[in-house]
């Protein structure tokens, strides 16, 4: 997978304060998802470092990184990534298997979280029997199962209609209010309403809001390949 090397991010230097709600804005191909995956420990930077609560995750070995993903962060995907053969309850409880939590405890905690996202009546439903919004809420409950301090969401409203997308945004906002650090990658400007910090990315680089808006208004400028991108 992936024989050609693409430089998705270059020279990104940023600090995310704990307890913040950070929205990363950018058009397709700007590197915003890559940034999120790097922070989530799902990918490794070719150079540079990423520090989470003082720990450099870019130098961690595979095992330590797996433990980091399990304990410190919860990931929400645009495609929901639920296991289609499992019920909502089993999907939510799934990450706890790898934490070595006994079955009863897992299901108990999953039930609580499903109730929290308003899906306690759908516990036995499979993903195919639920709407997109319900599936995303299951995915949010799953992200919370190991009680992480950091929630990373990659286009969480991308596959949802506007009204459903808004309820998901509210749910994420509630998580932030409850004290978690939330980072959301989106190109839905409505999300900025909930944000404490907004980061703009263009062609793999951090830019100021004005620059970002200017590029958004003049499509010719945005499609020009930047110096940092090699194909």
């Amino acid at each position, binding site marked *: 997978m992936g024989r050609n090397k693409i430089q998705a991010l270059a020279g990104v230097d940023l600090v995310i304060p704990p307890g913040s709600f950070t929205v990363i804005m950018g058009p397709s191909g700007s590197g915003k998802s890559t940034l999120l995956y790097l922070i989530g420990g799902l990918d490794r930077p070719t150079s540079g470092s990423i520090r989470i609560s003082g720990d450099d995750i870019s130098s961690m070995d595979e095992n330590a990184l*797996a433990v980091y993903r399990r304990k410190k962060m919860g990931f929400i995907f645009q495609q929901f990534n639920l296991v289609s053969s499992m019920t909502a309850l089993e999907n939510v409880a799934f990450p706890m298997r*790898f934490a070595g939590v006994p079955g009863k405890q897992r299901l108990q905690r999953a039930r609580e979280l499903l109730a929290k996202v308003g899906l306690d009546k759908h516990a036995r439903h499979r993903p195919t029997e639920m709407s997109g919004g319900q599936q995303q809420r299951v995915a949010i409950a799953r992200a919370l199962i190991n009680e992480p301090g950091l929630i990373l969401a990659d286009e969480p409203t991308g596959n949802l209609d506007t009204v459903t997308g808004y309820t998901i945004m509210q749910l994420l906002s509630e998580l932030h209010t409850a004290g978690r650090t939330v980072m959301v990658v989106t190109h839905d400007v409505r999300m900025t309403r909930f944000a404490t910090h907004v980061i703009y990315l263009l062609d793999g680089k951090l830019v100021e809001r004005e620059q970002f808006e200017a590029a958004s208004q003049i499509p010719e400028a945005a499609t020009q390949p930047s110096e940092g991108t090699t194909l």
Partner: protein
Amino acid sequence: MRFFDLVSLIAYNLSRRKGRVALTAIGVVIGTAAVVLLVALASGLQRNATNQFAGVADLTIISVYPKWEEAMMVEKVGGGGGGGSTTSTVQQLTTPVLKDLAALEGVEAVIARDSLRTMGVLKYGRLENYAYIFSADTPDYSVLGYELAFPEGSLALKKGELLIGESAMQQFMDPNWRPGRPEVKQPENLTGQQVKLQLTRWTNEGETINKTVYMRVAGVLKAKNGETDYAVVVRMDDLTTWNEWAMGTRINRNKEGYEYVMVKAVDTRVTTTLAEKINEMGFNAYTPQSFVEGINNFYTIIQIVFGGIGAIALLVAAIGIANTMTMAILERTREIGLMKAVGATNRNVLSIFLGEAAGIGLIGGLGGIGLAWLAAQLVNVLAAAYLESQAAQMGGNAAGPAAYIAPWLPIFALLFSTLVGLISGLYPALRAATMIPVLALKYE
């Protein structure tokens, strides 16, 4: 990840794709069944061959003779000039030698053997019998594995008693019988009956001297296709007395020794090594066990070859498992990405996929053992009649099952098929475990 969770997840994943798992496992079923059935057939053949032989001879008995062939060689070298005593060069089975033999490790009993060295005719009423008369120096013949044909007899001989083989008992002749007369009626059971033993010797002048001894039949020996069937067994002291009478001299066992000696080993496993030791002592030791071991070695090779043929079918099944697992990993790439995203370690992922492959092997192995068991029953039913008729013709014990599934065989087959699954899943599982999460999640 807890072991139980791992196993339940593996079982769950396998149950998600029942059809594919079943199709893949069929290959393992056939392979395992082939291995089990072919090895069972070879085991059955081996057991039958060994049992048939064990029915004829006691496999713990070693027959020990003086090395008479050495005496012949000495004579040849000597050029045949002069009648030098041949016995002086041959080590005899004397009483001290018997003690040495008894002292060897693994020896249960040493039994001296001698036979009547003159003509002896057994007489029962008008009937005569020319059976081979011998003695084995033991107070109780059950030690030699002798069995009674009729329960009322005894295998412990008192002075003046004898044992007669079942077949020998049917070989009485009427010296006055002429063609046209009715067939001689053979005695049905001589146990407890009195018989006469007429011994004959010749003087230097050629004169015949007869001596009649009255004997009681202590028991009839059960026919076993062995040497006792056509023989009469007497006590050693009786036999020595008669031989001394026949030869006109006293027999000194310290010098002349015995005709031959039967050494009984404690176990068939030590028989061959014991025979080798006795050979090294300067005697000829024969044991049917060495023949049986030859048979065993032959059938072990047959088992390996048969097992190998079955294993080819398992190899094909292994490729099937590898293929199924590779496809499964391609299909489940996003799931692998998800597992890693929610905190599964490489080892967790490896264990899950290896477990699934081993699970297919295990399911196939169980099915294969079941199939082989059914096939073995069928083979046994079909072969039973044929083997029984063979046993009736050839003698020996009744035939055992044609396909014999030893207790270790299903266990071995199950472990082997699981191992085959495990090895087949190694490459796909490693691929799954080392996937980069972000690439796996983006896989379309």
